[in-house]
């Protein structure tokens, strides 16, 4: 089975102090890491090929530094990687990105395309589905289990309230992968060093035969106007003290405001 996984390099923000600089996130003190959902997707793809053969290809769209995310995936066991890297792509909205990626993917002969459910930075959760649309492939989102079989893949999708459903898609298909589908492996520094010499295919706008007008902000329907940190709300009240005391205080407030019967 030939599997393509789309991956993205994103800033890790969980514990960081964020600063906005001229309408954009100040990346100075932030670490770029593989998008969490994509990491699960790569692991899933590698496991499938480890179990039943095949090849895993990776693809990312981003600037030069984002090559790291491909190296990391190669170290996990992917077989090849492509890097869509061109200033012309800057400012694209998900639909435009999907068109670019579709142009790069369409002749690849992939049986299965995996992406993360969403990216940790913009969180639009739409590039994957739009790509399926561009390629005319059946798709399923929020996969928490994949069972590839002959000519099809059975996908368990996570639904609301602890329910799930199983769908069978004929191959080729596109699936977006939810976190927790597996336990991704650790990628050691040695592992990354070992794949340092593998060549990564570089793809620019020209290679895809796309006209400049169909790329970037100009071609996009959605544009980012400004970025701001959510203001600290008036009503926020910080509870101080040990765990028990915080719980007691919280319960008291809930009771007082009528939140507890």
């Amino acid at each position, binding site marked *: 089975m030939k599997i393509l996984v789309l991956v993205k390099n994103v800033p890790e923000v969980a514990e*960081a102090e964020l600063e906005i600089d001229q309408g954009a996130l100040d990346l100075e003190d932030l*670490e770029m890491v593989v998008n969490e959902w994509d990491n699960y997707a790569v692991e899933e793809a590698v496991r499938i090929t480890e179990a039943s053969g095949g090849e895993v290809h990776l693809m990312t769209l981003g600037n030069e530094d984002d090559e790291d995310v491909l190296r990391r995936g190669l170290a996990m066991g992917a077989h090849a990687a492509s890097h869509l890297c061109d200033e012309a792509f800057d400012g694209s909205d998900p639909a435009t990105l999907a068109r670019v990626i579709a142009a790069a993917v369409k002749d690849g002969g992939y049986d299965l395309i995996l992406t993360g459910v969403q990216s940790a930075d913009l969180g639009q959760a739409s590039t994957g589905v739009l790509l399926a649309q561009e390629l005319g492939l059946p798709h399923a989102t929020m996969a928490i289990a994949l069972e590839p079989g002959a000519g099809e893949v059975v996908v368990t999708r996570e639904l609301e309230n602890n329910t799930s459903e199983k769908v069978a898609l004929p191959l080729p298909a596109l699936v977006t992968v939810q976190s927790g589908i597996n336990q991704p*492996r*650790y990628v*050691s*520094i040695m*592992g990354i060093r070992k794949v340092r010499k593998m060549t990564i295919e570089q793809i620019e706008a020209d290679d895809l035969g796309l006209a400049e007008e169909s790329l970037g902000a100009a071609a996009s329907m959605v544009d980012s106007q400004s970025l701001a940190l959510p203001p600290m709300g008036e009503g926020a009240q910080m509870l101080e003290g040990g765990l028990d005391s915080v719980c007691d205080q919280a319960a008291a407030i809930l009771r007082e405001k009528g939140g507890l019967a």
Partner: protein
Amino acid sequence: MNPLRTPFWGVEWAWLFYLLAALALAALALGLWEKISLWAQGRRAAPVASHKHPLGAILADVFLGRRIWRGEASAGLMHLMLLWGFLGLFIGTCAVAVDHYLVSFLQGKIYLWFSAGLEVCGLLLVMGLLLALTRRWLLPVSRLERRPDDTLLPLWLLAVACGGFMVEAARLAASRPPWEDWSFVGYGLSGFFPSAQAARELFPWLWWAHAIISLGFIAWLPWSKLAHAIAAPASLYLQGQPLAVLAVAAEEGDLAALGLRHLLHLDACTRCGRCVEVCPAAQAGEPFSPRDLLRRARRQARLKYSPLYRLPWLRGRRQALLERDRAADWEVAWYCTTCRACLEVCPVQAAPIEMIRKLRAGLVEQGSTVPPQLMDVLEKLHRYGNPWLAKKGAKAGWAQGRDIPDLRKSGPEVDWLYFVGCTTSIDTRAQGMARALSDVFTHCGVSFGTLGKKEPCCGDIARRLGEQGLMEEQIEATQALLNKQGLTRIICTSPHCLDTIKKVHPLFTEEGLPLQVLHYSQMLHRLWQQGRLFFDHPLPLKVTYHDPCFLARHNRLVDEPRQLLRAIPGLELVEMADHGLNSLCCGGGGGRMWHEIPGQANLAVRRLEQAAATGAELVVTACPLCLIMLEDARKTGGFEDKFAIIDLSELAARALGLAATDREAETNP
């Protein structure tokens, strides 16, 4: 008549004996060849230097079994009797062969003394064997296992020794030579034969039985745990070898590429169980035993590298066993706290700390069995240079309000670099150590600076967790910074940083700056000796001192902290049951600070039970990890109203009357 020995006296079919002997020797040779070929592969993987330990000490360890006596005289006595009994008989047998086939010299007085000597050796052997069996079966020496070969081997050897005496007794009873009383044991036994005739008739039977049992033993020798007779001396000879910097590629795989020293360890181990007895994880009831790990490693090494397992019909079995062992190793790889207690007591210096590191390196490289908590720690270390926070530049929070030069920027216009370390600079409890130390240094007029909010990680955690590549990167980055700023004299808060910077960093620095690396307790001790540190605030407290493993065992620093404590007026120091080089680990080393193993016992609670037994009102330690582990255990183990936990640095600040750092007030009794 000239006393002499008559070989094959009264025995026919000597050819059969030669045939059996040839077979036994072939088995012996095959066993030895297998081992030697394994060791040779190890030597190619990692060459070793000649002995680094004083030769006299090595010889005493080998021929007197000094390390075996320690803590258990009956074990020492048993081994001494077995060793010299066996060795004497071995030399005797060789002498007989030389006498028979080369030059005849066993005649007259020499022969008589020779006979008497062999009697003594035989007796020693029998007594040693009886003591061994008693210890294993009648005395409750709980560390000893009772596996089939643990019993069969001494019984077999006992049969060899007793058989020898019986053969001799029969010969003496049948022929009654005038010098018979020189062979005093055989002579004593010869009385049991009713007549010379009966002895003469029984003799061939006894002789053949003895011959067959002895030859069987020879054949079994290299395949049994008696192989330690060769491997243990070799292992002792190679102790104290410098850490080898193996190209990481050579460490690939699980227990592969072990190197000669570690392969010798595998055969040197006699499964005596001393390591299990002191291992904090094993003793807390966790499903881990250093002895079992070593045993498995031995089997794996054989399966992988032994020429015998290349034989086609053993291959299938080989694969199955390898898979099984690998799964077992995954499960136990993360229990070890690298406390070094096992190595301290191992009679043959074989206990498996280094091997565990290699095992971890294999698992980290392979990736999919690394526990998620440790993955998270390694990723934080890689991205943010600390195991605690996903945040850069978070290492100077403790220093707020203190004016300490940042040596990343200004270079060496101070005498000392104070290397604070990840945990001390970030963990709120341990930060008290940094504050106390910087105040004490300032008070004593020590000129020092730190590496500020972006102090690099020294690489210790990556090393202990087997992340070789990350360790290398961190060490190189740290060394590059130190070189650039010309910093050569370092004081560490953590014994873990001390150990790594002192022992491992030099292997990675080409410039080779003359590093002087001290633990802060050494520095305080120096200041005290120079009269620059004078404790003028009496602390009338009963305290006990918990030796951090990396200070005591790994770096042999046990007296300095104690002398400092005794220098505090009014303070009374009492010792816990396990202290000094025998200290009991708090459970925070080897990455376990960041790894909660499901259902794990709290090792630190066991330590605090010992502390409670001393009646001390304060438990002092000298390591940020110990401090945190003990502090947590104090809360979870119900010791809160018994005693407080404090670091030596904080106690020193108090004994100097320095403004109590914020945290101290909270922990004072």
